[in-house]
């Protein structure tokens, strides 16, 4: 699902970000970023599973955003998804927030 709030696009994938779903998600995210919004927030509240394929998709979005001066963050990860995110070191270069509102207000 995609919504707009305060010039930000909020992308809310559902289910799993795994080897099956991540390539399609990455393509869709890439298309959305072509419009060069002020910011893009990936709301992971409905994501129950994240693998390295999902991380690659999130990283591709972060790289595109950085190259186009788009603010970029992920938010609302459950404990297990957050564990994968931090264990892989992704929290070093992608901003994370507890809630979507915190992300919008802080970016």
């Amino acid at each position: 699902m995609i919504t707009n709030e305060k010039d930000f696009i909020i992308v809310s994938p559902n289910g799993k970000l795994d080897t099956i779903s991540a390539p399609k998600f990455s393509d869709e995210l890439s298309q959305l970023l072509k419009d060069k919004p002020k910011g893009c927030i990936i709301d992971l509240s409905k994501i129950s599973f994240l693998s390295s394929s999902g991380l690659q998709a999130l990283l591709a979005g972060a790289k595109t955003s950085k190259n186009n001066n788009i603010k970029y963050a992920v938010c609302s990860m459950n404990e297990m998804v957050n564990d994968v995110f931090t264990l892989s070191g992704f929290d070093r270069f992608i901003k994370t927030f507890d809630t979507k509102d915190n992300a919008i207000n802080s970016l």
Partner: protein
Amino acid sequence: MKCLHVNPNDIGETLEKIELSISKLDDALRFKIMLICEEVITNQIRHSNFKNRTQEIEFYFDLNDQNSIFLIFKDNAQRFNPLEKNNPDITTDIEDTQLGGLGIFMVKEYSKKLTYTYKDGCNILRVIL
């Protein structure tokens, strides 16, 4: 120990079968098992060199003791020890970040014990978690 034959043409089908087999375990354990299975089996299918052999990939598992889950991944590809692969460098800048090796790095992080052997023409990766 139960065995699943991995369909190299449909990784989704394989992962669904595994997920069904572990449905009685708690959420955190299921998450870890699925992560390990996805990373290892994806590597087996996409990156192993089977030369001219028919791909044979098998997954064995023993879930009897939730404190000591056994997983075994076996394939008939050319010898390849994934544990010798360097961990990804995650200290670089975002532009330079390369994710090669991230999957097996995650597998190492989530396993209590991980061993590799090559026997009778097969790669065998044993995981205890």
